[in-house]
């Protein structure tokens, strides 16, 4: 208790952010910490039945005792996710670039893609398994489908909204079509493309794990479903925990990329 009181009292007027009663960062950590604490004590004090929520410590014990199984599953998922990401982001980026750059194609195709994006694609998964089975290929393709559209739409929007005066200036300096593409359009659209990557990669992760959960024989998603049917609650939660770590890692990667544009883009966030 005393540390809590201290942090509240010492923080108020420190540095530029002095107008916060508690630093947002501190508050965030406190919140996460108390949730983890709750995760441990809620089932232990039988506020919740352990079949609904396994305590934090038991969850980790389950992870450690089934280490080989979980590593194996994680490897499967990571490989599928990586392949799906490569397809989703590169294909989405290229298609977005083309649609953003050519008005005719944009007018024809963009409404279609925007509509497809609005469909819950998971309804197509059973069909997909009929076509290509329940092996890793279907996970890769399904994940890629999920991530493709946000990447494509954000890139197209980014290209479209590039300030025309940059293009005019570059043309006056004799820039060729290729130079306009690589030296003006792409860097100018980069913040939007990055935000597409952020959303797209999160969606791809969802796609891969959901596909594993619906029908498969391997991967974290598969483990979660399998253990759930056997009421191995701790194993289920460890699987969930691994998915969280995976999503967090992806987000961190994108954040690293975004940092590179921060220097010339102070506080200006392009959101999808």
């Amino acid at each position, binding site marked *: 208790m005393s540390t809590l009181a201290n942090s509240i009292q010492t923080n108020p007027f420190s540095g530029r952010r002095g107008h916060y009663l508690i630093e947002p960062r501190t508050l965030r950590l406190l919140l996460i910490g108390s949730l983890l604490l709750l995760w441990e004590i809620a089932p232990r004090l039988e506020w919740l039945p352990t079949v609904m929520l396994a305590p934090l410590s038991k969850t980790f014990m389950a992870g450690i005792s089934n280490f080989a199984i979980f590593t194996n599953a994680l490897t499967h998922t990571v490989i599928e996710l990586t392949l799906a990401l490569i397809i989703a982001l590169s294909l989405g980026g290229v298609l977005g670039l083309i649609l953003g750059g050519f008005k005719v194609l944009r007018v024809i195709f963009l409404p279609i893609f925007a509509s497809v994006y609005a469909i819950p694609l998971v309804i197509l998964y059973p069909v997909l398994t009929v076509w290509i089975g329940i092996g890793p290929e279907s996970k890769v393709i399904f994940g890629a489908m999920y991530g493709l559209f946000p990447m494509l739409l954000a890139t197209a929007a980014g290209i479209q909204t590039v300030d025309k005066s940059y293009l*005019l200036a570059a043309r006056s*300096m004799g820039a060729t079509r290729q130079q306009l593409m690589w030296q003006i359009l792409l860097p100018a659209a980069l913040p939007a493309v990055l935000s597409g990557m952020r959303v797209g990669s999160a969606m791809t992760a969802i796609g891969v794990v959901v596909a594993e959960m619906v029908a498969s024989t391997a991967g974290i998603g598969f483990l979660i479903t399998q253990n759930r049917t056997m009421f191995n609650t701790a194993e289920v939660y460890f699987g969930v925990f691994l998915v969280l770590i995976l999503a967090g890692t992806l987000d961190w990667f994108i954040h690293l990329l975004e940092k590179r544009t921060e220097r*010339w883009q*102070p506080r200006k966030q392009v959101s999808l």
Partner: protein
Amino acid sequence: MKQNTSLNALPTTNSASLTVEHITQKFHTTSGEIHAIDDVSFSIADGKFIGIVGPSGCGKSSLLLMMAGLLKPTIGRVLIGSIPVVAPIPEEIGVVFQESSLLPWKTARENVEFPLKLRGVSQLEREKVAIDMLTLVGLQDFIHRYPHELSGGMKQRVSVARGFCQDSRVLLMDEPFAALDEQTRMTLGDELLALWEKNKKTVVFVTHSLTEAVYLCDEVLVMGPRPGRVLHRLVIDLPRPRSFKVMATERFGQLRNEIWDLIRIGADS
């Protein structure tokens, strides 16, 4: 060697300069055809500082884009020397745009050297040229700053430096100082004149400000409202080099009034 030739490729012996021949511009909108520019012709001698003034919508910016080869006239043509301008010719014609067309992801130096980079000038050489140009406009301490870290006046200095960096014979300027406050605008005008006195480029300077036009230019083309046409070509017979004191002279006031009268009459007719 190759870079050197690309930098100084233009033959300086050719004294023929920029010619605008019977330019007419029409464009279609949903509400019908708009006749933007009507049969404009003039020519500019080498090394002159020419102003273009006129009411909003008289087509002066469009005219400048046509002179840069960025916009195709409906009728007529633009010549540089005896070469028709149908596409941008960066070695011959440079453009400085209004506000900031600086690339926000490039530093001041990278922006200034960008036209040279497009031409394939080596990193070392274009860096040197860019730093020299930035020093000339007083920004030697801001070489590595991004545009958003510079004031409005500094950004326009970078733009001007970029324009001069191309080392073209003609420099077209589209209201380059329009977004600046009066004092900054005056200072930049003086700096521009100093640069121009040094290398005597042919400058075409589009502006809204009559004071600026009289202060900077050798001749001023006064344009009338849509369809845009040249009402009058006024010679500014003020001695050079000029300083701000010239603005207090009677002649300066006379010339300024003369342009104003032309614009007013043009608007009524």
